[in-house]
């Protein structure tokens, strides 16, 4: 049923998916794990083409999509250097999409401007997957975050998830919070007051069924959290470097902090990290951020497979 829901459709916004759709993606992703690890051979996408249109570089995301397509037996083409692309010659996104969607069965778009994926969807003859548009949505990241929590911790709605860092500007975390809210997950929003999630968004989360509390100190929540989802605090958000260092230092996850955490608590991060998680954490049982990066492959395999209607 839910599979019917995704076939031939674009994935631009996490809200494009119903809760059963999301659960179905995660179920299919579970089955994709052996193939994503290279332990099983899948050829369901043989003869199918994925076009990756990266108007801004994001090597990690692009490789993850290309790996997913290859693991399904399909192939990818595309560009990730806007300087050599037609966009650099002044072509509109609409035209680039109109043309490239003639060459592929599904396209992935990454673009520096908000709403670009929605626009691409309008002009594409094939489904569009949003791989991040400006400060806007990045739904496949959200799905892989949800998948990681479910795989590593169990039912998403039963976790207490602390979202840590820049909750004001960080798009990953807005989208994830919306996804978690659908499961009724308990969330603690841990951020300096200047980077706390905007109030109307917090209200939206509560409205969607989440239990949400706010906090400013990581030490207060580390003992009760099942998941610590850490995001980067960017220098640009601060008037001076001094202030940035002070704030960023307060939200660093290290072994000392994790000594107060539940034994089973996991630490996630969308990566790349820049000092938010001390490397000494990498070797602890809490560190799941590299596993999380790997899960991007089975989750994107599931999404591609469902959108292309490849069956399982």
């Amino acid at each position, binding site marked *: 049923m839910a599979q019917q829901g995704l076939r031939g459709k674009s994935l631009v*916004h996490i809200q494009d998916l119903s809760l059963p759709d999301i659960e179905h993606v995660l179920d299919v992703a579970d089955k994709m794990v052996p193939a994503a690890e290279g332990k099983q051979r899948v050829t369901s996408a043989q003869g199918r083409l994925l076009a990756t249109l990266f108007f801004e570089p994001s090597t990690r995301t692009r490789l993850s999509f290309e790996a997913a397509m290859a693991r399904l037996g399909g192939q990818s083409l595309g560009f990730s250097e806007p300087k050599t692309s037609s966009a650099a010659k002044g072509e509109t*996104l609409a035209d680039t999409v109109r043309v490239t969607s003639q060459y592929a069965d599904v396209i992935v778009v990454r*673009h520096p401007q*908000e*709403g*670009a994926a*929605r626009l691409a969807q309008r002009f594409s003859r094939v489904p569009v997957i949003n791989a991040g*548009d400006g*400060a*806007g949505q990045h739904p496949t990241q959200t799905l892989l975050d949800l998948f990681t929590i479910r795989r590593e911790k169990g039912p998403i709605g039963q976790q207490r998830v602390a979202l840590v860092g820049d909750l004001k500007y960080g798009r990953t975390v807005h989208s994830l919070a919306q996804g978690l809210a659908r499961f009724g997950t308990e969330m603690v929003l841990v951020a300096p007051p200047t980077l706390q999630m905007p109030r109307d968004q917090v209200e939206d989360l509560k409205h969607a069924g989440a239990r949400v509390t706010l906090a400013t100190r990581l030490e207060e929540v580390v003992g009760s959290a099942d998941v610590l989802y850490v995001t980067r605090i960017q220098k640009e958000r601060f008037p001076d470097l001094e202030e940035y260092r002070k704030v960023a230092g307060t939200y660093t996850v290290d072994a000392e902090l994790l000594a107060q955490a539940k034994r089973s608590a996991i630490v996630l991060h969308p990566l790349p990290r820049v000092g938010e998680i001390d490397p000494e954490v990498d070797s602890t049982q809490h560190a799941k951020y590299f596993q999380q990066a790997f899960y991007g492959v089975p989750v994107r395999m599931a999404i591609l497979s469902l959108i292309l209607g490849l069956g399982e």
Partner: protein
Amino acid sequence: MRELKVQPIRNGTVIDHIAPGMALKVLHVLRIPQEGMTSTVTAAINVPSKEMGRKDIVKVEDRELDPHEVDKISLIAPRASINIIREYEVAEKHLVHLPDMVEGIVRCSNPNCITNQAEPVLSAFKVTSKDPPRLQCGYCDRLITDIAAQLR
């Protein structure tokens, strides 16, 4: 009657109960004046009103405005009433009705929104609240609260 400060018209459209100070914005939304347009148009600003204290009134002579066009003014004047005048009589009277979607007219307030680039699309907004009017960009999701400031 204070109303008489504004001359009655023989035929045309009277837009009444516009929030004070918004008359020129209403004309802007209606694309008035348009090239080639010959109708006499009167805008009255800060007219005393029993219900509203002060209000603005716009009168367009010899032209019956298309209701769809007129509905757009509900973006900035959600309580406006439209009177179609024929031979000095009010022949039709209706309240503006804000549609569920608004295309064009308003610019997205997010400078980094794709609709503010040279792309072949009109802006498009979902109407999330009718009074006061609130819009949400159909592309970037930005909420537009100060609609008057974003009129094209």
